[in-house]
């Protein structure tokens, strides 16, 4: 609105938009903006700041739910009066959804109808609004699939036969088919690999340029938005705390919240903390010729690796490269098909019965999904105390003291011990999971993408916590992630995996100067501010 260009021609005008969930929870508290054709507006904020609430409201998708929407969303169309989506009839709303306004959702895995062929889904949406013949619709489907880089032959496949990135592209193709004037993309890349993420963002930008469609890009990652959006709105607890042209806003953030948000984003060029490299000859874990097969799937194809006592070894790689499988094998949750894993010189596979139960306590793991790694029916305190109980500790008072002490150490309070997992936020759950892993004072903790499910600010906190704990508890960490910047910020050395093999291992400081082409490609895909 400060930009005069916006007033020349406007497609979408949002005035004092409020979204009130029953409760009442005011998810969005007065958002206003205007959008011109071909313009990209970025909407950023931490988790729960009301981004999705806003995105859904732009298409009137709150209708039919108990959520209340106030304010106006005006859709300007040539030769016709503006349509306030908030007051439009159901029929009017239906006719603009698709051809005028389209949306791409955060979860590509579930946003397509699993029972219908991909091509059919695109064609049906197209025919619904254009009344085109079957043949025309098929023709159009081929066009848009080609445009988003999917072989049109695969139109006959079902969504589950596609990868996440491909599904996201299908959704974009579906929108594209109808040539909408506004596309709302709600965290379109969060669930994807960095490499795929870059492709999708590039695609969206090209389409915008080609068709002149306006884009509302929602993300918690300032980096993602920064590359594309001309203007950015920063949301916090439903309120726009800061807005402005991207360059200016990212360069000189005024609001402390914006600043915090920016700082939390891990950067490849951030300075690494000074740290003494652990002795190269003090090997804690040694992996030799490790292979793991799941039926015909070769998850690991001969991995050799050493983990030194006291170091943090980062493992990166794209999805499906075998990171988790390697991690699980290190703590003997998974038996190797061949090869050995030696822990302090002893073959893990040789442990049996009582010895196995005793010794495996020295190896712990923190999982990616904090929701699934805590028993939903158990109190946090009980979950954390469970390892001690298993070990035979019966003194409740002592248990309690130990648990509370550790919870406080990871940044929780004794109050959290008496809650169920669903009463905690994702970051808090991950802290509890870390506390549980720590309580047995293990020698090695494998962290399998411990921060991938968290938003940037929380991510930064948890990474920081791990860093501190490593010193304090004298830990050896294996840190798995797909985000290079995150891995770099915690690791001493980084191993890069691809298709079940380790392509190279380098010191964290040398990560920006890789030998291998694949590592190079990974680095290039990381969005930069």
């Amino acid at each position, binding site marked *: 609105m400060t930009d005069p260009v916006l007033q020349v021609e406007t497609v979408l005008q949002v005035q004092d938009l409020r979204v009130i969930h029953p409760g009442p929870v005011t998810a969005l508290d007065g958002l206003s903006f205007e959008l011109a054709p071909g313009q990209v507006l970025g909407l950023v904020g931490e988790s729960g700041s009301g981004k999705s609430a806003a995105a859904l409201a732009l*298409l009137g*998708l709150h209708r*039919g739910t108990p959520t209340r929407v106030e304010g106006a969303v005006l859709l300007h169309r040539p030769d016709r009066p503006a349509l306030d989506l908030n007051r439009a009839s*159901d029929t009017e*709303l*239906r*006719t*603009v*959804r*698709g*051809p005028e306004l*389209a*949306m791409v*959702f955060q*979860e590509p895995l*579930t*946003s*397509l*109808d*699993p*029972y*219908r062929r991909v091509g059919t889904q695109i064609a049906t*949406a197209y025919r*619904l*609004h254009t009344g085109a013949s079957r043949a025309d619709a098929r023709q159009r489907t081929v066009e848009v699939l080609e445009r988003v880089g999917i072989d049109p032959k695969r139109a006959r496949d*079902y969504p*589950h036969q596609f990868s996440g990135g491909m599904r996201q592209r299908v*959704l974009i193709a*579906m929108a594209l088919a*109808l040539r909408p004037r506004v596309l709302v993309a709600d965290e379109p890349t969060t669930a994807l690999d960095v490499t795929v993420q870059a492709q999708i963002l590039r695609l969206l930008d090209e389409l915008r340029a080609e068709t002149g469609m306006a884009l509302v890009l929602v993300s918690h990652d300032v980096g993602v938005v920064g590359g594309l959006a001309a203007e950015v709105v920063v949301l916090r607890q439903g309120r726009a705390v800061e807005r402005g042209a991207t360059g200016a806003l990212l360069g000189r953030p005024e609001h402390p919240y914006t600043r915090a948000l920016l700082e939390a984003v891990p950067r490849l060029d951030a300075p690494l903390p000074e740290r003494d490299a652990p002795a190269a000859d003090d090997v804690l874990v040694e992996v030799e010729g490790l292979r793991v097969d799941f039926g015909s799937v070769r998850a690991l194809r001969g991995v050799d690796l050493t983990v030194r006592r006291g170091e943090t070894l980062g493992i990166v790689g794209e999805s499906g490269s075998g990171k988790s499988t390697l991690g699980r094998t290190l703590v003997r949750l998974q038996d190797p098909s061949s090869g050995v894993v030696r822990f302090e010189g002893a073959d893990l596979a040789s442990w049996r019965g009582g010895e196995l139960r005793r010794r495996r306590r020295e190896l712990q793991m923190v999982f990616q999904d904090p929701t699934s790694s805590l028993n939903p029916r158990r109190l946090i305190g009980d979950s954390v105390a469970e390892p001690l109980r298993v070990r035979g500790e019966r003194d409740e008072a002592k248990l309690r003291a130990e648990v509370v002490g550790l919870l406080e150490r990871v940044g929780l309070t004794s109050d959290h011990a008496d809650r169920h997992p669903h009463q905690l936020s994702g970051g808090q759950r991950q802290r509890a999971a870390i506390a549980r892993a720590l309580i047995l004072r293990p020698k090695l903790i494998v962290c399998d993408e411990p921060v991938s499910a968290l938003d940037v600010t929380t991510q930064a906190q948890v990474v920081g916590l791990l860093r501190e704990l490593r010193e304090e508890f004298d830990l050896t960490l294996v840190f798995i992630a797909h985000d290079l910047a995150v891995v770099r910020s915690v690791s001493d050395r980084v191993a890069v995996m691809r298709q079940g093999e380790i392509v190279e291992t380098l010191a964290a400081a040398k990560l920006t100067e890789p030998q291998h082409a694949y590592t190079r490609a990974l680095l290039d895909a990381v969005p930069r501010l």
Partner: protein
Amino acid sequence: MIRFLLRRLLGAVAVLLALAALSYLLFYAMPGDPAQLACGKGCTAPQLAQVRHALGTDQPVLRQFWTFLTTLALGHGFSTGPSTVWCSAPCLGYSYQSNESVTQMLLDRLPVDVSLALGAAAIWLLLGIGTGLYAALRPGRLRDRVVNAVILTLGSTPVFVMALLLLMGACVWLQLLPFPNYVPLTEDPAQWAQNLLLPWLAIALVSAAGYTRLTRAGVLETLNQDHIRTLRAYGYPERRIVLRHAVRGALPTVVTVAAMDIGMVLAGAVFTETMFGLPGLGKLAVESASTVDLPVVCGITLLAGALIVVANTVADLLHAALDPRVRI
């Protein structure tokens, strides 16, 4: 697919063998002597011995069971008195009571139960899916609850009560229909349907409840899924969303359960057959059990077991066919 079917076949053979052994031993242990029953009221001891020998029930039980199995696999000759007839495999032997070939008896009666099951299934699916959808369109509202209560009431009525009420209502009070008298489909399709209408209804009304629930829950669950939101975002009419897409999500489960229910039709057929005088397998089962007619009993258990195994396989195939994510 072929591998799946082969594996299923092997499993089925194992299950059916165990089933045959179980039923043979169990019904063998039932009190009552088939020879005594065949021999009649004034049977003398020597005559009884002769009858036992003629039936083969004087042999040890394992021997008898073995004969049953070999007869099934290889066929067997049976004396009718003046001559001997060869019963070729798969031969389930001859009834102790009526001297009929058991295989033939089962084949004669199977069409009744197949008619009963398929017709009833068609009605209960229609009714169950219909009411389930109706209830799902406005969950938690009055009409949802009314449908729920009515369906639950119907569903908790024992079949024999339902059958009696239908008979009284349709044939006695309203005189809409004559009393059912089974006519084979091959003889007269119209008569077949007319005479089976009440039995179908009796089973369907009682069974529909489960399907209403399944449909309702399935539709509501699907409506909560993300892909439905995508449809809404592309301006699909709500009716279309519910009737095509949400139903589609409920369908695999409904169809799978229906296939299994159809396979189990013999379990509850006794009641319908008794009330409506249908000459089916359920009634035959109860009669032959009460007369310890072992060949018939084993024949029916094997057939019923086979039906269930087949139904389970079909259910899995259907599920795979209906849900592209499921692979077999």
